């Protein structure tokens, strides 16, 4: 495992939205973790668990209600336009749907070049064009795409364009928000391969958000499992894959059917994911948990380091430890 310095660190991050009747909806709740330089941190969870919100908080698309996101490789630039711009250059985000994340009314060349213009990189149009061509080549597209419209491209090609746009500023940290979920299997594999190649080439750090445990466990060095706005388990991929502890993680593994692996443990969760606006008391998972105890209803378990680097928030574990 690559062991590097910490690149991004968030502590006690909370994001609340204004819900109906002014009742706040907690999208992200008291979340702390850090991402190391050069690694791929996989974030997995079902819809509404707040993983996308977290991704946007990490690149400051959203301002946290409380808590902080700290970048170690440059100064925090809140309120300072110049520093904020530097932050925007270093951190990038790629979205799920390549059909809506690319402006349909602009040509590919313009779209890829735009970040350079915003940040004033490149002497002239010529130089910028050269940069655009080289990044397009990196993502597997040639010069002929410069003058094409997004509508002429397939989903996979669009996602390559989106990656090119994100990488042309040579960022250090990239949030990939469900980047392959909308793609067909064969194209998904192409994009995953590309992401890995680029990471190696440019030394990128990824926050890889997905609902697909297979994809996450294939790509990530470390995995965090989210449920209703909070992390329930976090650790190295190996730890999570082989020794997951939280009942939710277990259920997730059981549910994400693999064409090859036989199911380890047939866990069928009952009921639906509660809406973030009506978050249950105590452990948020207790409404669906098969091993729910009385304590779980009353008290929200805190993250405990079970083994080095492996954290879990469950009363079952704490029961075992103490």
């Amino acid at each position, binding site marked *: 495992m690559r062991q590097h310095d910490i690149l991004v660190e968030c502590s006690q991050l909370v994001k609340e939205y204004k819900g109906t009747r002014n009742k706040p909806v907690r999208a992200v709740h008291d979340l702390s973790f850090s991402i190391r330089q050069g690694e791929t941190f996989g974030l997995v969870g*079902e*819809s509404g668990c707040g993983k996308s919100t977290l991704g946007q908080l990490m690149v400051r698309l959203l301002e946290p209600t409380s808590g902080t996101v700290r970048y170690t490789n440059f100064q925090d630039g809140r309120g300072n336009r110049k520093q904020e711009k530097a932050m925007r250059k270093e951190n990038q985000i790629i979205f799920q749907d390549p059909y809506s994340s690319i402006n349909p009314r602009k040509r590919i060349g313009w779209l890829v070049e735009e970040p350079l213009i915003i940040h004033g990189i490149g002497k002239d149009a010529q130089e910028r064009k050269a940069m655009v061509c080289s990044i397009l080549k990196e993502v597997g597209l040639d010069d002929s795409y410069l003058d094409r419209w997004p509508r002429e491209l*397939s989903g*996979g*090609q669009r996602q390559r364009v989106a990656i090119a746009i994100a990488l042309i500023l040579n960022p250090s940290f990239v949030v990939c928000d469900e980047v392959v979920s909308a793609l*067909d*299997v*064969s*194209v*998904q*594999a*192409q994009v*995953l*391969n590309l992401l*890995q190649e680029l990471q190696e080439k440019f030394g990128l750090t990824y926050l890889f958000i997905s*609902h*697909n*445990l*297979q*994809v996450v*466990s*294939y*790509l990530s060095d470390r995995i965090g499992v989210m449920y209703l706005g909070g992390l329930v388990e976090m650790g190295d*991929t190996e730890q999570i*894959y082989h020794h997951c502890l939280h009942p939710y993680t277990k*259920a*997730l593994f*059981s*549910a*994400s*059917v*693999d*064409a*090859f*692996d036989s*199911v380890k443990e047939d866990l*069928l*969760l*009952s009921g*639906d*994911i509660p809406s973030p606006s009506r978050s249950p008391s105590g452990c948020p998972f207790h409404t*669906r948990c098969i091993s729910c105890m009385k304590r779980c209803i009353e008290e929200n378990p805190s993250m405990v380091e079970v083994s080095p680097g492996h954290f879990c928030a469950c009363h079952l574990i704490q029961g075992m430890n103490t």
Partner: protein
Amino acid sequence: MEKERKAILEIEHLHLDYRIGGRFCHAVHDVSLTIHSGEILALVGESGCGKTQTALACMGLQPESAHIGKGKIYFEGRELLSQSKQQWNTLRGKGISMIFQEPMTALNPLVKVGKQIEENGRNHGLGKIQARESTLSMMEKVGLPDVGRLYSSYPHQLSGGMRQRIIIAMALINDPPLLIADEPTTALDVTIQKQIMSLMKTLNKELGTAIMLISHDLGVVSHLCDYVHIMYAGTIVENGPVHMILNKPLHPYTKGLLGSIPSYGKKDQRLDSIAGIVPSLENRPQVGCQFYNRCTQRMASCKNISPHATMRDGHMVACHLYPEEA
């Protein structure tokens, strides 16, 4: 075949074309398949492969612009394509039911879900009280809690999983011999997907409903189905029992598909992806193998000669790599 099973649905050499720019483009090309009673059959392929078009043709719901050129569809021995509109109407919802991908949009947002289920029963001859009773019992059967209250809720008040259950209840209220499920779990979360899958499996066993499952997810298929057809660009390239296909894929496309699936086991190695994309309707080759352009094992003959289906290792494959055994 060890048991004598009744064929519910037989599709024979189905062709479905669209007219684009004065030219017929094949969305479905020479597709044949058979579903037997009580069986779960999967139609697998990436988007744009013609899976849904095939299914809609079985319901007589293909778009008006579609043109069924050749082929026959038999349902319980009855030819469907030559039916009148009226006959289609009596068949749909009673003989063959269909559930769709998006549980969010497949229900009328302005009508109470109970009414929508009931409507299917009423339309096929159930009395008012009878329809209501079977609606409620069907809702219970698909695992919905508190059916009395749910009966009069609106779709937007329900979660995706519940809506999909409603749609299943609606499809099954008339106890049809065949259910066509078009990507029923794609829009759902994995834990919910798992619930729906096991529900479908249970219903298949309890009611004996044959299911034609359309999916792009080999994982789902492997856990649910008995028999798989792999479709590519409007043609069936390989079919056979599910374990055979997964463990001993023959067609390069099937192999590529399986290789593309990421998993922990493949960590730290590149995925075995297929280059390129599924060609769009207009850009499909008129002759030869449809997979030619993306195939890593292509040969000269692939370009101009369409491959025929051959039996190999206990299942069918249409590829020049496997010439017909004399």
